[in-house]
């Protein structure tokens, strides 16, 4: 299995990469990193650079060599799972960290401590609405504490404001959207806030919210001796 961190977790929010590594090691999962990990192409696809994205994709699949690809990022998940298929006909075996962690819990390879905390979860657009993964992260949360849902959740979850190239081209707009989202999150009165996309974490924390990626959340509640 290849752990493809994605640009945000690899370079901007490195805690996510580290936390994921900790969980994988605790569960005894074998994995490797790519020698030279590059962007998956998502950023280019979303901003109109389709041809460049395609070149990058063709280069990337050579490196994947039919292995399972583990990703942290909703954007990578969508591009590797959907766009690679649509654009270059590559059907890749992709799994998101939240899905893997959930499996590891079910198989008893990791165990989480109970807590009484109220935990909110933000569905990233790409992982949730675009590709339908809503339950794996929620199952993990329920193992720990009480899951609290926001006014808009699952497929109706509101965007954090970072996607589609908006954070780079219109940072102010991205901030306004994040602040609306933060208001909605805070209304649930959570003790902890989680999500499953480094880019969502980055934007929400840039605008003042303390939010944990599912990998960090799992590390936080990891039972040392399972």
């Amino acid at each position, binding site marked *: 299995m290849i752990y493809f961190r994605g640009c945000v977790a690899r370079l901007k929010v490195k805690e996510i990469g580290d936390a994921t590594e900790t969980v994988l090691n605790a569960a005894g999962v074998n994995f490797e990193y790519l020698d030279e990990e590059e*962007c998956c192409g998502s950023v*280019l*696809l979303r901003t*109109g650079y389709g041809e460049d994205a395609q070149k990058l994709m063709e280069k990337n699949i050579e490196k994947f060599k039919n292995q399972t690809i583990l990703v942290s990022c909703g954007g990578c998940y969508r591009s590797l799972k959907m766009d690679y298929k649509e654009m270059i006909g590559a059907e890749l075996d992709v799994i998101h960290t939240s899905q893997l962690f959930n499996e590891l819990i079910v198989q008893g390879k990791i165990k989480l401590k109970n807590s009484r905390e109220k935990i909110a979860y933000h569905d990233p657009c790409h992982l949730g609405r675009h590709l339908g993964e809503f339950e794996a992260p929620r199952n993990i949360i329920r193992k720990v504490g009480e899951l609290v849902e926001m006014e808009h959740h699952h497929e*109706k979850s509101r965007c954090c*404001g970072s*996607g589609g*190239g*908006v954070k780079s081209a*219109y940072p102010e707009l991205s901030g306004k959207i994040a602040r609306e989202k933060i208001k909605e999150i805070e209304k649930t009165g959570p003790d902890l806030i989680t999500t499953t996309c480094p880019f969502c974490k980055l934007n929400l924390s840039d605008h003042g919210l303390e939010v944990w990626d599912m990998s960090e959340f799992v590390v936080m509640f990891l039972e040392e001796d399972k």
Partner: protein
Amino acid sequence: MKENELKTMRSSFKIMEERRIDLIHDPRIIKLQERVKNIRKKSVKKIPAMVETARKSFKINGMEFLYAEDSHQALDLIYNLIKNEKMVAKSKSNTLNELGLSDYLNEKNIQLVETDLGDRIIQLKPDDNKPSHPIGPALHLKVDKIAEIISESLDVKVKADPRVIMELVKGNVLEELKSCKIGITGANSVAAEDGSLIMVHNEGNISLLSLMDTHIVVVGVDKLVDTIEDAISVVKLETAYATGTALSSYINVISGPSKTADIEKKLLEGMYGARKVVVILLDNGRQEALEECLWCIGCGSCIVSCPVYNVVGNEFGYRGYLGGRGVAMSRFLQDEKTSFNSGLYMCTLCGLCTLECPVGTPTSEIMEKIRKESKNTGFSPKEHYKIHKSIERKGSPF
């Protein structure tokens, strides 16, 4: 839009969402939705043929049929019909908004009476005369603000009371309508085979306009469907999604001028209603548009949930075409520069609007397609160029 207007808009949106939730999940509406999806998808595939069918049917029904390739032609055609008037009346219409009719008539010194209450308020507002929702153009304004607008523009002191405001505007509009002989409206759907125009309203204003000497109807080719039955399905669904009520108070079906043959079977036109009905079918880039862009039935459901629209309002959109789908449309109604300036790159591509859209308009996919072209002609943010360069150089955007 100002911060307080955005706040009012968001709370109006919230009320709308709550009001319609049961209705749009009603099995009958879900069934209707499937029907309308098929109608829209089928119709946009055969616009040229439908235009020809409509041309014949309208003529048979005794209406004048005109075709406008673009907005200039449409405005010329309208001007030709109204040039001898001092004042004409109109109803709420995105198509007339698209033409910029109100500015055009201003230049030509012809006064325009907005008969829709929301539109009238927006018209009287001293700045930012853009609507915030296709069906509720003034829902970003609080009643005291509206009272202020009305008081100042009509030079009266009006209480911040909805009914009082309504009565005052009604009186004012009715007074002005006395000097109008021509009414201009849009249409919500057009039945090509039947040669009928379908219009939806609650206020009754379209009925008043259709009773004037001349009724001019300007409508985009994307509104064409085969039959009255199809058209009614479309407008029923639009109403449910736009307002949360199953039906509007009025659905007018206009298939000809007012006429009688009660005396010796001799045909006389212009009994109570319009003596002359003129249909102007407008292309203005529609047939060049991506097909999915034309499925839209204009309900405004997409903007109610849009994270971008909720924080910036009508700045994200083009004229009355609000939100992402409006931005996409502006690429075809105008050009790449216009769609860039309307917010082509403001969309986060979150995809929520597609889920909320009764016909499933895939706006984020459309946006991506347009961005691809737009980048090639240079309308792309410089930050994205830098990111693309960075990925090329070192394999990551950072």
